[in-house]
Structure formats: structure tokens, C-alpha cells
């Protein structure tokens, strides 16, 4: 289990926990200290699984992600520079923040941006808090991706900020084919195995550009989060064949 990092003295306001629990017990007619005797219902895979593990996962992921409104690009490792360059140029991005946990990939992207002459914003600097809302693009890698829905999964950590994929209007996500899982079930069965760092505080599943339909049900993208999400799928599996 995780350990708290900020141990501000715990002060509990409101109703005493024991009183609160006693009221719930009272409503259920249960005794203190009782245990669960009936089996906890397990997830019935035969009902809820929507993507089989033997499907062509990269193809389905690309297809679903596109259906969610994200743009898909494919790249071999050595083509990454050209792809990132194209996207940044197309959207006229002058500066970017990188938020990449994978060390090699991080080094590579840093070099690409240097070659492109894109200004790099450091999310570890003290000015990041205000700056994040002015950056043109955020470039991140992912923990995992889901073929079922086309979602990408990103956790926070020492190298990944929450703001980098939320605040800029454009998000570029780097997904390696070996990271693509079949179904939501497969991810949540062992979420911790997919974390880039243990003991992190936030994980987000992103499934499309930021959306709203609040005004007369009309779909608008980019209300708070990025209006554009580009996914570069890096094939890291076929070279080994």
C-alpha cells in the first residue's frame, strides 16, 4: 500500500467515524465486526469483455481512437522526428512541454525538438504553474493504451505532470505497440503493473479531445482540455521478428 507523503496532522471534522459507521450498521441491521460471508461478485468476463486478446490490437486501437476524434500517425522509431515536426508545424506550435517517463524516448524527443528549433518549456520549473496555459503543445508517452475503446492511459509521476496533457490546446501522445492492451478489464486487473512509477497519485484514461455538448447539444471540442489529440503509434514489436 502507498505511504502518505504529506503528513499534515490528520484532523477529522464532522461526525465521528464510529458513530457514522454505527448508523450504517443500524440501517442494515448489521453487527460491528461482522465480515462478508457471501462471495463478492466477480466480474463476469463473458458478459462484459468487448475486445478479445487475440484481435489485431494495434489496428483496432487506431480505428477506435480515430472514431473518438483523435488523429492517428504511424512511425518507426527513426521516423519519429519527421512526424512530430509535421504536427507541430501544421498547428504552428512554437513551444512545447515534454512529459515523458520512458528515458530513451525522452532523450530522443528532446533532440528532435532541439533540431526543430521548438522552444522547450520545463514543467519542473517554478514558472510552470502559470506557464502551462500558454504552451502550444504537450508531448507525452503513455502507460498503456486500449484497443477496446481507443483510449490512452497516462499516470502522473516524477517525469509526467498532470498539466502537460490537459492545459495545452494540442496533445501529442506516443504509444508503443507493445503497450496496447485489449480490454478495460485487462488494464484494471493489473493496473499497477502498467504504472511507470509505483506509488503515484493520478492516472487518467483519455478517450478523445476535450468535448462538450452543453449548448443546445452541439458538439464542440477543446473546451478545457486539448481540442486536438494526435497519437503517434511507434512499432516496437515487428523489428524483433
Amino acid at each position: 500500500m502507498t505511504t502518505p507523503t504529506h503528513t499534515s496532522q490528520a484532523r477529522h471534522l464532522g461526525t465521528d467515524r464510529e458513530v457514522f459507521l454505527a448508523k450504517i450498521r443500524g440501517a442494515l441491521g448489521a453487527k460491528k465486526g461482522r465480515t462478508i460471508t457471501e462471495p463478492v461478485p466477480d466480474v463476469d468476463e463473458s458478459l462484459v469483455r468487448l475486445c478479445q486478446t487475440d484481435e489485431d490490437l494495434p489496428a483496432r486501437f487506431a480505428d477506435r481512437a480515430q472514431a473518438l476524434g483523435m488523429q492517428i500517425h504511424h512511425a518507426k522509431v527513426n521516423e519519429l522526428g519527421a512526424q512530430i515536426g509535421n504536427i507541430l508545424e501544421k498547428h504552428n506550435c512554437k513551444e512545447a512541454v515534454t512529459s515523458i517517463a520512458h528515458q530513451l524516448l525522452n532523450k530522443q524527443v528532446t533532440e528532435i525538438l532541439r533540431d526543430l528549433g521548438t522552444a522547450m518549456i520545463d514543467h519542473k520549473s517554478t514558472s510552470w504553474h502559470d506557464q502551462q496555459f500558454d504552451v502550444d503543445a504537450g508531448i507525452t508517452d503513455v502507460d498503456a493504451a486500449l484497443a477496446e475503446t481507443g483510449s490512452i492511459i497516462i499516470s502522473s509521476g516524477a517525469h509526467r505532470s498532470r498539466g502537460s496533457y490537459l492545459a495545452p490546446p494540442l496533445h501529442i501522445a506516443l504509444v508503443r505497440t507493445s503497450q496496447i492492451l485489449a480490454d478495460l478489464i485487462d488494464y484494471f486487473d493489473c493496473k499497477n503493473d502498467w504504472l511507470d512509477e509505483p506509488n503515484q497519485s493520478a492516472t487518467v484514461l483519455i478517450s478523445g479531445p476535450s468535448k462538450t455538448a452543453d449548448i443546445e447539444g452541439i458538439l464542440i471540442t477543446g473546451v478545457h482540455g486539448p481540442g486536438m489529440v494526435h497519437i503517434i503509434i511507434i512499432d516496437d514489436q515487428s523489428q524483433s521478428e
Partner: protein
Amino acid sequence: MTVDTIHDKHDPLHPQLPYRIADSVNRAMGDVQLQQFVNAATTARDRGRVETCRDAFAERYDAVRRHAGDIKQHTLDHLDIYVEQFIDSATTAGAQVHCAASAEEARHIGIEIAKANECKLCVKSKSMVTEEIDLVSALEDSGIKTLETDLGEFIIQLDNDAPSHIVMPMIHKDRRSVARAFERELKTKYTEDPQQLTQIAREYMRHKFAQADLGISGANFLIADTGDVVLCTNEGNGGLTVSTPRLHIVYVGIEKIIPRLDHLPVFLKLLARSATSQPITVYTTILTGPKRELEIDGPKHMHIILLDNGRTDILRTDAREMLRCIRCGACLNACPVYRKVGGGHAYGAVYSGPIGAVITPLMKGLHNYPDLPHVSSLCGACFEACPVHIDIPRQLINLRRDMVTNRTMPLSGRLAYKLWAIVLKRPLLYRLASRIMALILRRMAQSNDSGWINKGPGPLGAWTAERDFPAPPSNSFRDWWNRHTGGQER
């Protein structure tokens, strides 16, 4: 039950009690454009739900709904154990958990925390629980400026209005009212273009996110064994709410717990499909305590306020299944009555539609909401739509039963039903009575030419204040049947 102390008499979601529905229904029925608007939006959403769910689950759809319902029902049946487990695991993850028995206590806890941390500006993401406890006005009264950041809620806040649908809060507003509110309150150039209006709101709120020192959110799910808080949003404001401010307060009802993280996909797969016909919401954020030492951003402190506020009263009764609700709004979209009156805040409470018609009287007292159990045609559409398989029609009938047995219904009503029961049990008497009734009713309908009786005499006046009664045809079904079958009664 606790008495709310800060009722604003003009707040349509927290009206003066007891609440009678007639006025708001008449208002809603009088606004044809509003009705068409709400009808079109909900019908489209309902159709979308059916298509997406059938597409994903095919013939398994009903079984999946039952499965999700079973997991939630198990959790509710052992809620004492799961709440305790959640408190322990969330505490281990570094959050501070507080227990609030009532709305008043919940407001008080949040304000205490905000004051102790010297918070001045709060960004808030959409949460039904904070509406339920009327949090925002309490924060503002305590000097904490609070900004709703969900676009719909933001517009409603600017326009001093109230949400009318649990998923589409401004289903009752059109773009012109948004345009006017922005021009008036934000001093921006008048535009009716939804894209431009959204852009204006985005720019305005980004600065606020940077300045805010407090983020308040609700939660869609709590995970007992990990202490995780799960938020499902589409706009990204939920993510920003828990990214820039240094303090995060979660307000959440105890019924939001599920046992384990591996149960979550069952609900994620159903929630967005049922609510907005998306396979999953754009952002599903899973929070495990506050920011860690080495992490770059996120709140330094995280407080979770667990709310009872009448939930244990529901838990105690045979309406326990109502607490399975994941607030998807599908029952509102499917409901023919909501489609007619939902735009006019007719339910007089935060939770509207079929779900509101049941839980509002349960939480706030049947005597305070005597009309709500009747705001339904019992057609069963809500039951069919519900992703956690709640038998809402049965619960409505139970409430109607309770009204009779606990004498919430006036004596005249109870006597009328008694009499009706006597007549129904005796075929001859029934035939005679229905003939006489038909005669009287037709006479009454003729007097206003509409073919409808909208004003009954004597004690019937109260009944027809909220309903119209069709004039009976000159021939009863029984007569017709006898003529066509040669008098063979069955």
C-alpha cells in the same frame, strides 16, 4: 431528517416545503418551445443509448445491466464494511477522510478546511452532491469565491439559473440566453455561435484555474480496497480542478463505493454509453491520495467528505436498490413525463426525472413531496434504461402505497380509493357505477368543449388541478365487446 437552514425561497431546486408541483408543471406545459427542445434532446439521447448499448453488448445488454446491479447491490448490503475499508485505504493513500451526517455538516466541514488553508478562490467541477447540499452559496457566504467550471454549470451560475437535468444541466436553455448572459456578465461581444461562446468560457476560466487555491469535485466511484476516487468527465475541467490548486476537496455520497478496482470497468462500460452514448467518457481520472513528494503537480492535500444526508434512511427500507444509481440520466431521457415537464424544474429538487421522483421523497420526506410519486405513467421505460437495473416503477408504486398506509394522502383520497376497491370487487356494481360516471363525466366535458375535464367538482378539484381527464366515449369498451362477440362475456 435534518432541516436545511439556508433555503432560498426562490431557488427552484430547494423550494419551500411541502412542495406542490402544480405551478411548475403548468408553467412547463405552457412553454411549448421549451417542451419541444427538451423532448428532442432527450429523445435523441435515449435513441443513442439504445444503439450504443446494443452495438456493444448485443443480446447481453440486459444481463450486463443485471450484473452491474448485482455488484452494486452486494456493496450496499455490506456498506458498513466497505465504507470502513474505504476510509482506511484512502487514509493510507494520504487523503484525509471526514464523515458528514447531514448537508449542513458537509458544508461546514468544507468551509472549515478552506478557511484553515486560507483559500480565496475555488474552481469546482460538476457534482450532484454539491448541488444537493447547496454548497456554492455557502462557500460564497464564507468569502470563498467559487467558480463552476463545467461549461453548462458555468453558464447557469452566470445566469443565476438552476440545472434541470443531472447530465445535461442546461437542457432548458438555448444559445441566445447564453449569448445574453456572456455579454452582460463577461462584457464580451455578443455572439450566438456555440464554438465562439465555448472559446470565451475557455479563456475566462483558464486564468481562474491558474489562480485558484482550492479545487472541489464530486466523484463517480470510490474504490474500497485501494482508496481511489474516480472522476468521469468530458471537458477536462475535472482534471484541471485536481491539477492546479494546492488543495482538493472531494464531496461524495457513501453509495458511490464499489469493492475493488477490477469492478470499475463494468461501470465505465455502462456509464458513458447510458449517459451520452459514448463508449467511455473523455477523461476517466483515478486519484490515489494527494500529490507525491516527487510528482510535479497536483494538490498537496486531499480531503474526502463522505456524505450520508438521508442515505442511511433509504438503506434501511426496501428502496435500498435506489442507491445503486450511478447518475447516468438515462431514466430522465427515457421518461415521457420528464420530456414534458423536465425543462421547468418541475421536480422541485436537485434530482429530477424518475430517479428524483423516488429518492427526493425518500430523502426529504414523503409529506414534503406528496406529488412526486405520481409524476410517472409507470410505463417502465426508466427500468429498461437503467444500467444498474433499478426497478424504478416498482419503487414508485411502493411510495404510493406508503402514502396511503402512512396517511400522507388526505382522508378524501383514501376514502375514494377505499370506495373504488369495494366497487371493483363487485362486477354488477362496477357496471352500474361506470355507466353513471360516464354520464356525469361527459356532461362535464361538454361544458367546456375541449373533450377534457380539467376542473372537477368538490374533492375532485384537487385531483384535476394537476391532471386532465379525458371524457369517456359514449360507448364503453364493455358495450363494444358485447356487440362484437354476440354478448359472450368472458
